[in-house]
């Protein structure tokens, strides 16, 4: 058994790494097509993302950019792991940011408390947006994925209207809100990049969400609601409550993401604030295999590639910055394709092993039962199908017990 597990572990690590490498190779070809040596390009990306000098730390920029992204990633993971395929993080992020700004400039509060109140407002706004798809799914039986897409459009329209008209800074010539009070701004450690409490808050939530999902009853309930809803119901869990709670908490996280972007960086909402940070969070969640730490790392990788592509490729080498996001998109495509491939590979391996086992037993006793194919994995909801591969990857029960 031991040797088999090692083989499986190798596959499990090797195949996604292959997907990432594949994306990088294709990206390299694209860079070569634009007339630049790909090796130089990738070197420049890494250098512009990770180098640090006393005057200016590029990696701090990566962390600042990653902070809100990590929160939208966590929001996506929380919702998706409850079996709710909501991609409304973008809208939650947008409205969360706006709510935080309004509290930040309209309500005078003492320092510290003010920032907390702003983030709380962001969380509430995000949760309010986040809970709608869950309500539609549970009480009306509507497809929550579609509802969340529509909500993104609605929030986008409303946000643009609010920023341009009622909440527009008076006298300003461009489209943005008032600036939040000094008391509402997050503390900054590195004034050059505004790295500060934003990344601390983001990392704190990484730990909190991990503890919540892994170590709390609520987290267990929602994971079960996502992974095996029938089982969860029969064992007396209130899956509806668990799913709605997950949607609200996921929305709150994305809303806080919007909040730390505005009280940690921009100090106001600018028209065009919804720039894909919520959507990228979903992407990072997928790249990170829907796990808390994986997602956080993917969010970091995402920011590093984006910052590296802009600061390095575009500014230093003149290669269009879109190559960074192109490579990320390729990673998503390849990772999505790799999941069923691994599944098939494992199925094939376990069949081969099974056949060998049966042949061996048939040689010992003539009345062994014939092999059964692995049962189709129970993956009625998309979120668990994302995670994929394990159900079918496990050896068929008949063989295991025989």
């Amino acid at each position, binding site marked *: 058994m031991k040797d088999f597990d090692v083989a499986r572990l190798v596959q499990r690590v090797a195949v996604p790494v292959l997907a990432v490498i594949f994306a990088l190779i294709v990206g390299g070809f*694209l860079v070569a*097509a*634009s007339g630049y040596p790909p090796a130089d390009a990738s070197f420049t990306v890494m250098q512009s993302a990770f180098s640090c000098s006393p005057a200016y730390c590029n990696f701090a920029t990566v962390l600042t950019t990653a902070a809100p992204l990590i929160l939208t990633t966590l929001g996506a993971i929380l919702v998706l792991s409850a079996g709710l*395929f909501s*991609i409304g993080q973008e809208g939650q992020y947008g409205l969360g940011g706006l709510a935080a700004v309004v509290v930040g400039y309209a309500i005078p509060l003492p320092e510290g408390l003010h920032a907390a109140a702003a983030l709380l407002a962001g969380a509430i706004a995000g949760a309010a947006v986040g809970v709608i798809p869950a309500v*539609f*799914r*549970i*009480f*009306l*039986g*509507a*497809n*929550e*994925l*579609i*509802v969340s*897409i*529509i909500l993104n*459009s*609605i929030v986008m*329209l*409303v946000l*643009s*209207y609010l920023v341009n*008209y009622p909440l527009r800074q008076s006298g300003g010539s461009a489209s943005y809100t008032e600036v939040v009070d000094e008391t509402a701004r997050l503390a900054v450690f590195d004034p050059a990049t505004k790295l500060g409490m934003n990344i601390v808050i983001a990392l704190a939530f990484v730990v909190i969400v991990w503890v919540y999902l892994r170590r709390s009853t609520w987290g267990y309930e929602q994971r079960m609601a996502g992974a095996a809803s029938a089982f969860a119901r029969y064992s007396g869990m209130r899956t509806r409550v668990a799913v709605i709670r997950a949607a609200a908490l996921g929305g709150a996280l994305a809303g806080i993401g919007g909040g730390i972007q505005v009280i940690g960086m921009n100090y106001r909402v600018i028209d065009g604030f919804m720039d894909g940070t919520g959507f990228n969070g*979903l*992407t990072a969640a*997928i790249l990170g295999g829907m796990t808390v730490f994986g997602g956080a790392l993917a969010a970091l990788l995402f920011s590093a590639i984006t910052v590296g592509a802009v600061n390095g490729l575009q500014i230093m080498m*003149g290669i*269009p910055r*879109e*190559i960074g*996001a*192109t490579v*990320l*998109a*390729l*990673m*998503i*495509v390849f*990772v*999505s*394709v790799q*999941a*069923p*491939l691994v*599944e*098939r590979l494992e199925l094939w391996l376990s069949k081969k092993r099974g056949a060998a086992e049966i042949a061996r037993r048939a040689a010992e006793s003539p009345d062994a039962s014939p092999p059964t194919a692995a049962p*189709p*994995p*129970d*993956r*009625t*909801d*998309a979120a668990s*199908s*994302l995670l*994929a591969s394990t159900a*079918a990857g496990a050896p068929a029960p008949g063989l295991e017990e025989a």
Partner: protein
Amino acid sequence: MDAILNFFSSEMLHSGIRLTTPILLGAIASALSSRAGVLNLAIEAKMLVGAFVGLLALDAGGSTFTAILAAFLAGAITGGLMAGAHRLGVDLIVFAIGLNMLALELSVYLMRVLFGGTGVWTPEVDTLDDIHIPFIESIPFLGDLLSGYNVLVYLAFAAAIAFTLFFRYRPGRHLLAIGEAPGAAAAAGIAVPRYQATSLIVAGGVAAVGGAFLTVGELGLFTRGMTDGAGWIAVTAALLAMNRPGFLIPASLLFGFSDAFAIRLQSTTDLPQVVVQLLPFLATLVVLGIVGYRATRAAALLGMPKRPRGAAKRPQPATSTAGS
């Protein structure tokens, strides 16, 4: 009364129909995929591919016809990729998210590499000519409604009607069966994978023509993300139509005209556009709620276990379709 008539100017009709066209083509693609049991969220990607490749072909010296054909083929290839991924058992939602992002970024990257470092590409090309229908053109209202568009506008509406008729025939019925219950359809001897693959490929082509309408048909230029979410609106419109072919035209018209209406509104009144722009989205939410609720109720009355209807619309697990 005059004020009302004045509000519904001939140009508003024209704008409404023109803005509807890409949405309608995308909605056909979305409904076709849904009917084959696949939630196709990559409509936006296919539109962008069509917009870019169409203009590329036109600039390379092709006629407008070859440009549209090239766009169709490029979209069909993208659809083919999706079909292949589906066959493998790939989660098509994730795949579509990747494709959308890829189309958005790669089109701009290629544009910049091929045509210089700027954010817009304006080749010297002639876009499609408008067709003026004799006689009808001179009828007041009707002339504005029916005449003076390029060929893709007529093609889009014709495609929607053809799509409706398609369901009256055998292959269409098979497709319906697949969308409702792939397992049963397979048991009845329908070649489910082939139908699904064909649907995805055709849907890709149709959506791409919707994108080509913007570049080859209307503007003759390409900018970053120039479909501006039309693909997502198309998916929404298809849902508003409950994926019924006969409802696609009115649903798409609602989205197209709400934009035209908003343009008109802000040049004649002080009402914020957002009010009008929100309407079709809110309407879709209501429709989704009602449809879902009725399906849940019906299931309950028949004594079936409550299951969100949405779940049935998701891509089927790999083994149930790819393996069958």
